[in-house]
């Protein structure tokens, strides 16, 4: 069978369209597996994977852990607060300590952009980036694209609007890279202070009006407002944000067409997305979660296969 072109999954920018398609085909099989009565396969037996999370995460960590367990890998979890990094043990020391316990693969989330790239220069294990600061979140982009493909068939020519805090979003950046590689058109929309000044140069459309963005797109990927990642104030209040950038069922019903609503979670209900919109027939948010496990199984399986 085919192999990934990369030893690690550090970002979507570094992988090819063929890699993405291979991951999707593999994920199709695993999605079938996890819907069987017996959901587990022995593919990664004797492979030890460490989930190293320097930043809080519930769903990504659970999704990875479930993917690992369904593949029969041995799993260890490590969580640490990022604030202690500079005072205490360095990232490299922490990870080397874990590797000394004979770990084959590291799934890492970290607040610093490039942290997994830094690690990749210093250690031998396969690395999966589970989110590095405001840089990339490749498995999220893969599961998002996989979910769109499942809902709409091919992505070629489809219009995807990414709405919200683009500046602080690793999901946005990875999504842009993934969607463009798969032939989709991408628009970003949000308050001007939350749009990177040079984002146009990535070949995306830029729109400041949510209504217009929704009117344009086939799929709206609504991002979480990352208050925790904003070191500086970028907009006056959540109230104003939800009034002028929030999406409700009413907004969606007023459109002359049916669009798909996505969200990487966790949703700030009533801020970027109202409950009735999040739970409406437009939404594929829970499909994203289910597909997340299948896509992560595919990534882990393919990376392990690359070394064996």
């Amino acid at each position: 069978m085919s192999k990934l072109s990369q030893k690690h999954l550090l970002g979507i920018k570094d992988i090819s369209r063929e890699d993405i398609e291979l991951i999707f085909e593999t994920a199709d099989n695993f999605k079938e597996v996890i819907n069987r009565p017996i959901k587990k396969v022995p593919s990664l037996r004797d492979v030890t994977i460490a989930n190293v999370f320097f930043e809080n995460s519930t769903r990504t960590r659970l999704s990875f852990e479930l993917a690992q367990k369904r593949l029969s890998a041995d799993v260890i979890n490590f969580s640490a607060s990022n604030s202690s990094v500079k005072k205490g043990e360095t990232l490299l020391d922490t990870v080397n300590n874990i590797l000394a316990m004979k770990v084959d693969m590291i799934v890492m989330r970290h607040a610093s952009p490039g942290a997994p790239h830094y690690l990749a220069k210093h250690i031998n294990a396969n690395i999966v980036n589970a989110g590095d600061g405001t840089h990339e979140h490749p498995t999220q982009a893969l599961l998002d694209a996989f979910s769109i493909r499942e809902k709409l068939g091919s992505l070629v020519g489809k219009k995807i609007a990414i709405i919200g805090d683009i500046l602080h979003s690793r999901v946005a950046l990875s999504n842009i890279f993934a969607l463009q590689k798969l032939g989709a058109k991408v628009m970003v929309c949000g308050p001007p202070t939350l749009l990177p000044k040079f984002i146009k140069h990535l070949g995306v459309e830029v729109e400041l009006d949510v209504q217009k963005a929704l009117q344009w797109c086939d799929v709206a990927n609504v991002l979480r407002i990352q208050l925790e990642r904003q070191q500086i104030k970028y907009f006056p209040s959540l109230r104003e944000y939800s009034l002028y950038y929030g999406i409700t069922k009413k907004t969606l019903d007023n459109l002359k067409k049916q669009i798909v609503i996505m969200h990487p979670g966790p949703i700030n209900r009533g801020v970027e997305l109202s409950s009735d919109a999040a739970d409406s027939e437009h939404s594929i948010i829970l499909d994203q979660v289910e597909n997340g496990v299948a896509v992560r199984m595919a990534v882990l399986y393919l990376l392990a296969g690359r070394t064996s």
Partner: protein
Amino acid sequence: MKILLQSPQIIDPNSPYHLKEKNVLINNGRIVEIGDKNYSADKVIKAEGMKLSIGWFDLGTSIPDPGHEYKEDLDSGMRAAAAGGFTQIAVLPNTSPAIQTKNEVSYLIKGNDTNLVKIHPLASVTKNNKGEELTEMIDLHEAGAVAFTDGLKPVWHTDIFLKSLQYLQKFDGLLIDHPEDIWLNLFGQMHEGINSTMLGLKGMPRIAEDIVVNKNLELLGYAGGRLHITRLSSAKAIDMVRSGKKKLNVTCSVTAYQALLDDSLLADFDTNYKVNPPLREKADQDALIKALKDGTIDVIISGHVPQDEESKSLEFDLADFGITNLQTTAANLVSLSKWVDWDVLLEKITVAPRRLLNLEIPKIDIDEKANLTLLDPDRVWKFDERSNFSKAKNSPWFGQEIVGKAVAVFNNGKHYFDVA
């Protein structure tokens, strides 16, 4: 000991031998003969194809001693300077404590009568370089401070900047400023552009430099005095200095590496390229080269900012800024010589900084003191643990073979060679 330099090209606009290839005989710290004869000597250095200038002067070396001697101390800094071709260095006050009383000034200059490398203290404009409260600049000047700066930090407070320009006029003192808007650059990691966008790193926009240069030139026009803007990087800021020079007493400098590197080099998060001002784009590099040629840029500095491994070998946003560059400035100059003539380049690292600081300018002539640097532009060498004299190795060239090296320096009756 008699030392003969055989046929280097002499580059010194103040010398009758400027641009000529001559044999130069040095004895006991003085130039005793210049000519075509093969003078007898204890040591002969074959210097054909090499450039002999007066000793290089670095207008802004960071040696964080006192305070952070583990990064670089005066001893290691002076060795790296000598090995890099510098016989005189003006050191930045980003020390702990800052260079803000005459005690710190005396600490820096204590070995100046005997050392190969002479240290010229740049004293802080404001206490602890915080930009808030002026230091006793007259007293510091009397003690031996050659100019005033907050070093790697901008004098950001508009009124303090204005007052320092005014206050320094008592003794025609020079204010040196690193132009940076601290609010626009807050948490910034690299040049703002397509590359910072793709890397998810917070940008340091050109405008953070441009508006401060603009503002400070206005303040200079209003207050009078002498301003030197250091570490320029933005094309627009350079244009502003170019027009400012027509009516104001303003000069500027650039680090030796700034025109050679761009922000695409940060693509794999190599912290050795994390510098302030950040590496920018082709248009800025071109503007720097043009400004080096047309004289807008007066001075080239090494930009030496040593960091220990713990400050560089870590996550990009946690790493400190800076390149260890004393020993690689020569190679930078060789790269720049593709576009800029040697006599123009060397003037900016020899005569120009001394003139700005009103210091004595050595001269290559018979019976003058030997304050000299011999550069071999063709020397291929490896910058590594063995050749490095700095305590730091935060350099994109560390571990690499590079071309161009200062192979001999003379000053204060002392010398250092790296020749066969």
